[in-house]
C-alpha cells in the first residue's frame, strides 16, 4: 500500500489545490499514469503516480488546498484487500529530515577584551562633564563602560535630552522671526486688557489639589486654558484662520499653547479639541505637550494645528503681555502673572489674587466690542471654576 501525496513541483511550491481526479477508486494505476490535476500559482498541473496498484478512496476533497506531502489517496497493491474504512488521520508533512536546522552563524561583535573599553557615547558624556571613569563598572560588550554606566547626573545631561532631535533652535529662531514679521506686517492688531479676580479659582484649585497625589494635581494654566476654550464657543470669530483674503472659522478648537524652550526659543503646539477635554484630560495633555516639547518630540502637525494661541507668563513674570498673533490665526490671549492686589469688594478693600488678561485680535475679522465681550466671558467662566 502506498500513498499518493501532493507532490512538490517546485522549490517555490508550498501547497496545491486538488481540482480534479483523472482516475477513480478501483482504477488500476501504472507508474507514470496521470491521476489528478492540481492547481498551483503557475496554473493547473497534471500529476502522476510512481507506483503500480489500484487507486483507493481519496483522502482529500476536491477544492482543498493542502501542503506539499499531504496524502491525497492510497494506492493499494493489486489484489490486496481494501484498507480499513477509516483512513489514518491525515498528517501535515513534517519538515523533511533532509533539512538540518542551520546553526547560527557565529557573530563576533566585540573583539576580545584588551585593557579598558569605553564606548564613544560614554567617552563623549564623560569628557563634557569632566567625569572620571575610575571605579565604574562596565556593562557593555566585553565589559565596556557605556553611557548608562555613568552617574545619573551626567546622563541626564547627555545629548539625548539636550540635543532635541526635531527642534533646531537656530531654525526655530528663523521661523519665529518670519512668522512674527509677517504678522506685524499683515495683521492689523487691536489690543484689549482686563483684570480678572482669580481668588475663587485659586482657592478651588488648592482644595482640589489638597486631596490629590502630585501626579494628579492640576495647574492654574490648565484652568485658564479650559476657560478660554469654552468661551470660544460664543466667539467663533476668534477661532480660525485668515487666508487668501478671507476668514475661515474653525469648528474644532485647538489651543496653541506657548511653551518656552529651555535655552531659548518658543513653540506653541496645539492641545487638540481643548473644549471637549475634561480638566484632568486637559492637564494631562498639557503635561504631555510640555514634556515632548522639552524632549524635542513634537509632531510637526501639532505646530500647524492651532486655531488660536494662549500665552501665560506663569508665576515669574510681569503684569501683562501684548501678544503678536501667529498667522494665519486671528487672536492670541495673554495671561499675566497673578499677584495679590487690593480690590474693592462689596464696598470694602480686600486683598485679592489678580491677573491681567489681554487679547490681541485681527481687526480684519473682529472688532473691539466683540473682543471685550470675549474677555468678559473668560472672566465669567473663571469665577465658576467648578463648571470648568
Amino acid at each position, binding site marked *: 500500500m502506498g500513498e499518493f501525496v501532493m507532490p512538490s513541483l517546485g522549490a517555490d511550491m508550498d501547497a496545491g489545490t486538488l481540482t480534479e481526479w483523472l482516475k477513480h477508486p478501483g482504477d488500476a494505476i501504472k507508474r507514470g499514469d496521470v491521476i489528478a490535476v492540481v492547481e498551483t*500559482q503557475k496554473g493547473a498541473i497534471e500529476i502522476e503516480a510512481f507506483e503500480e496498484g489500484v487507486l483507493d478512496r481519496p483522502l482529500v476533497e476536491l477544492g482543498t488546498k493542502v501542503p506539499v506531502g499531504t496524502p491525497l489517496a492510497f494506492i493499494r497493491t493489486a489484489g490486496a484487500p481494501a484498507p480499513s474504512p477509516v483512513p489514518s488521520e491525515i498528517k501535515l508533512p513534517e519538515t523533511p529530515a533532509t533539512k538540518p536546522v542551520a546553526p547560527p552563524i557565529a*557573530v563576533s561583535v566585540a573583539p576580545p577584551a584588551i585593557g579598558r573599553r569605553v564606548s564613544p557615547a560614554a567617552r563623549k558624556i564623560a569628557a563634557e562633564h569632566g567625569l572620571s571613569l575610575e571605579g565604574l563598572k562596565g556593562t557593555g560588550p566585553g565589559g565596556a563602560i557605556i553611557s548608562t554606566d555613568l552617574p545619573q547626573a551626567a546622563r541626564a545631561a547627555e545629548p539625548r535630552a539636550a540635543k532635541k532631535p526635531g527642534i533646531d533652535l537656530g531654525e526655530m529662531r528663523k521661523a519665529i522671526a518670519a512668522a512674527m514679521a509677517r504678522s506685524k506686517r499683515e495683521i492689523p492688531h487691536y489690543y484689549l486688557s482686563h483684570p480678572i479676580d482669580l481668588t475663587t479659582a485659586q482657592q478651588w484649585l488648592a482644595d482640589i489639589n489638597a486631596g490629590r497625589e502630585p501626579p494628579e494635581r492640576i495647574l492654574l494654566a490648565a484652568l485658564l486654558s479650559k476657560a478660554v476654550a469654552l468661551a470660544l464657543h460664543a466667539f467663533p470669530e476668534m477661532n480660525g484662520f485668515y487666508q487668501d483674503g478671507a476668514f475661515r472659522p474653525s469648528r474644532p478648537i485647538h489651543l496653541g499653547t506657548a511653551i518656552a524652550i529651555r535655552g531659548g526659543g518658543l513653540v506653541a503646539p496645539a492641545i487638540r479639541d481643548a473644549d471637549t477635554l475634561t480638566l484632568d484630560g486637559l492637564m494631562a495633555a498639557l503635561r504631555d505637550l510640555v514634556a515632548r516639547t522639552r524632549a524635542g518630540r513634537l509632531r510637526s502637525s501639532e505646530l500647524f494645528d492651532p486655531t488660536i494661541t494662549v500665552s501665560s507668563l506663569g508665576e515669574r513674570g510681569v503684569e501683562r503681555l501684548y501678544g503678536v498673533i501667529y498667522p494665519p490665526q486671528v487672536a492670541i490671549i495673554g495671561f499675566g502673572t497673578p499677584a495679590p492686589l487690593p480690590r474693592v469688594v462689596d464696598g470694602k478693600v480686600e486683598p485679592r489674587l489678580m491677573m491681567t488678561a489681554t487679547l490681541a485680535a485681527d481687526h480684519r475679522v473682529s472688532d473691539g466690542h466683540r473682543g471685550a465681550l470675549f474677555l468678559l466671558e473668560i472672566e465669567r467662566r473663571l469665577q465658576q471654576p467648578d463648571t470648568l
Partner: protein
Amino acid sequence: MNEIAPARIKTTYREAVRAAIRDALTADPKAFLMGEDVGHYGGCYAVSKGLLAEFGPERIRDTPLSESAFVGAGIGAALNGMRPIVEVMTVNFSLLALDQILNNAATLLHMSGGQFNVPLVIRMATGAGRQLAAQHSHSLEGWYAHIPGLKVLAPATIEDARGMLLGALKDPNPVLIFEHVMLYNMEGEIAADAGAVETGKAAIRRPGRDVTLITYGGSLAKAMAAAETLAKERIEAEVIDLRTLRPLDTATIIGSVARTRRAVVVDEGWKTGSLAAEVTATIMEQAFWELDAPVARVCSAEVPIPYPRHLEQAALPQPESIAAAARATLGR
C-alpha cells in the same frame, strides 16, 4: 440589502505585484511589461500570469533571452515617451544587462546635461532560499545601490509590493525594484483600496529602545523574528525596514541609532563591500559619538550560495544569528 465592502482583502505578495502591474497598465496606456516569459509562460515566478490575456501581446511582451537588448530597448522606449516596466527574471541574469543599466540608464540624464531622462522601471527577483545554487541565488541589489542615477527599491511587505511599483512609475528616473524570491508566496491582508506608497523613506516596523536592527527585503521577516526572541529576554529591538536602498534614508537610521546606541545591520548580500557596509559606515560618520557598542553586521557567508539546504541556510542570515549579534551589542 446593504453590503459593506470589506475594508481588507487577503492576498499574496505575488498577487500584489500583479495587481500593481494591472493598475499601472490600466491607468497609463503608455505603460507596458516586457521580459523573458512574462507572457505565454505567465512569468518565471507566475507574477504576470493571466495578464497576457487581459492586455494582449503588445503590452505583455515576451522577449527573447537577450537581457542586454531588451533592457536597452526599455531604456530607449522610456527615452521616447513610453513607460516600460522591464522584468529581468532574476538579478543573476541582470548582469548580462549591466552595461545598459549602468552605462546608459544611470548616466544618460547626466551626460545629456539634463535633457534626456529615463523613466524606466526594472523589476527583478533576488535572493536565496529555494536551493537554486550559485547561479540563481545571489543578492546583488547592493551593487546597484552603488550607482548614482538609479533608485533602488526593495519591497518587503505586501503593502509595499502593491504600492512601490506605482510609486516608481511616478519617478522620472530609472528605478530598480528587487523582489525577494522567498516573499512571493507570503500571504497577508491589505486594505482593499491599497495603492501607491511613498518611496524614499525607511519604515520602523517595530519600535524598541535597546538596539536597532536595520534590514530590508527578504531579511525583514528574519529580523522581526529575532526581535520577538529578544523581547522574551527583555531586549527591545527596533526594526528598520530600509525599503529604499538608494537613496538611503539616513535620517531614520541615525535617529534610531542615536536613541538605541546600538545597531545590527542585516543584509543577504556578502559582507565584503556590501550595502550593510554602507549603512555601517554611515552610522560611523554620523552617529559615532552616540554608540555604546560596535555596529554589528549579519550578512551571507563569503561563499557562492551552495545547493544543499543545510549549507544554503547556514550561508544566509538567520533569526538566531541576528539575535546573537544583537545580544552581543548589549554585552550579553
